[in-house]
């Protein structure tokens, strides 16, 4: 259909001309004016307390204590069950969050501005590995780190970013791809490039050597630091692609540990959801698939823009890590994803695949036709709150989301 092709052309144009720049870190209440006390933004499509998975509940309890809305975890749990908190998806407020994806008023959010379209997107700062809130952790250690991020690291990172007028992300990601990152499971190179770009302004804007050393050690010691930046970048790139009448391009994919949800440009704000699937992958010593929580987080926004599982060919090391097969077959994942995308990104290319551009613009028509669901590289959370990451793997987006979306899209196009 001509008007679909034209609308999709426009969608792709907006995707590849986006110019995301990491510009600042500001408190969530400042970033998102609608965000109020006792309002909790979470990962994935809408979900209420009674349907939340274990880690999501654990994170809700922890964040309620952190924000001072509950005396302790038990108090938080009963308040949540009594409906005292207002739950909304991050995606409804220009934000994204990894795994449980908790966003509340006092948290520092990184700001990515898409200079081409002027829109902003937000994501919390990556807490590092181990016991962390994104995996449902909620004990004192977790909350203490959140406090430090809010009071010390976040503001310092904001000062550094403002000092250099922000860090352009498109070129940084392009370099990261040539250095073996796919920006979902592997962010070593991009995190290092970020440290390299920000060390001088960190130093220039600090008068406390001890605090500076701690901040740089945190940044330099966290291989996944860039993931949250990549997510905000993804959101900032995809938001201008929303609401193009006639476009069959996926603008968001996310999961809340219960449901997987997608949005499509030509079908407005509707979420098309289906029960989320279990990742298949490799587990850390001492854990098995019995410990795994179903797939969770807004991080699938990076697949939506052609990174993560779509850019597996750039990151052979990840293919082995997530149990996706031989490193030499990593490229097959990328080539398979190019069957369900409309274009290749001209700037984000994969050297080992003869500079093939990452597959860009997931077309629901192609997904349904080929039966090839998007491949997502993901961390695997323990099903009990607070244990943390227990493995990494690959998960497929549920085909039912795309079939529903296709039916709705066809209806909107007057086709039955």
């Amino acid at each position, binding site marked *: 259909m001509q008007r*679909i092709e034209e609308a999709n052309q426009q969608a792709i144009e907006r995707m590849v001309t986006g110019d995301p720049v990491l510009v600042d870190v500001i408190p969530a209440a400042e970033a998102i004016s609608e965000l109020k006390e006792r309002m909790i933004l979470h990962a994935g499509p809408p979900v209420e307390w009674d349907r939340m998975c274990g880690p999501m509940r654990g994170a809700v309890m922890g964040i309620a204590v952190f924000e001072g809305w509950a005396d302790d975890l038990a108090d938080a749990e009963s308040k949540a069950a009594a409906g005292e908190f207002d739950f909304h998806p991050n995606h409804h407020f220009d934000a994204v969050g990894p795994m449980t994806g908790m966003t509340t008023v006092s948290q520092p959010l990184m700001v990515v501005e898409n200079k081409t379209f002027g829109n902003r997107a937000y994501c919390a700062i990556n807490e590092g590995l181990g016991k962390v809130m994104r995996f449902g952790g909620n004990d004192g250690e977790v909350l203490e780190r959140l406090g430090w991020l809010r009071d010390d690291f976040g503001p310092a990172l904001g000062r550094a970013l403002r000092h250099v007028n922000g860090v352009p992300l498109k070129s940084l990601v392009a370099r990261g791809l040539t250095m073996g990152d796919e920006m979902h499971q592997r962010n070593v190179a991009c995190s290092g490039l970020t440290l390299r770009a920000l060390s001088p302004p960190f130093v220039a804007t600090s008068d406390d050597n001890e605090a500076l050393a701690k901040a740089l050690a945190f940044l330099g010691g966290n291989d996944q630091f860039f993931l949250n930046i990549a997510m905000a970048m993804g959101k900032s790139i995809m938001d201008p692609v929303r609401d193009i009448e006639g476009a069959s391009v996926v603008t968001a994919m996310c999961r809340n540990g219960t449901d997987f949800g997608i949005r499509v440009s030509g079908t407005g704000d509707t979420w098309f959801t289906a029960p989320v699937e279990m990742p298949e992958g490799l587990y850390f010593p001492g854990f098995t698939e019995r410990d795994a929580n179903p797939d969770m987080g807004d991080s699938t926004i990076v697949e939506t823009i052609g990174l993560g599982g779509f850019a597996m060919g750039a990151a052979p090391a990840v293919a082995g890590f997530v149990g996706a097969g031989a490193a030499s077959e990593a490229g097959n994942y990328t080539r398979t994803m190019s069957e369900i995308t409309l274009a290749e990104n001209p700037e984000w290319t994969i050297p080992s695949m003869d500079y093939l551009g990452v597959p860009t613009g997931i*077309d629901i*028509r192609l997904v*349904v*036709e*080929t039966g090839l669901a998007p491949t997502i590289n993901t961390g695997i959370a323990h099903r009990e709150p607070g244990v943390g990451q227990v493995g990494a793997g690959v998960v497929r987006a549920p085909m039912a989301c795309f*079939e529903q979306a*296709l039916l709705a899209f066809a209806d909107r*196009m007057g*086709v039955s």
Partner: protein
Amino acid sequence: MAKDPLRDLLHEPLSVINVGLEGFAGELAAQKVDVIQVDWTPPAGGDPELADLLAKLGS
């Protein structure tokens, strides 16, 4: 006069996309003819309703 693609077919080396029986691709490859095999499955997993919609939406 514009190029006539059908007359071109009769003069240019064949380059074949084989959709279906793999034996045909094998025999062409054995004759050193360029051929690529499509790992074909029925569209939309064989769901006729979805396949019909897809055809109309021109995927």
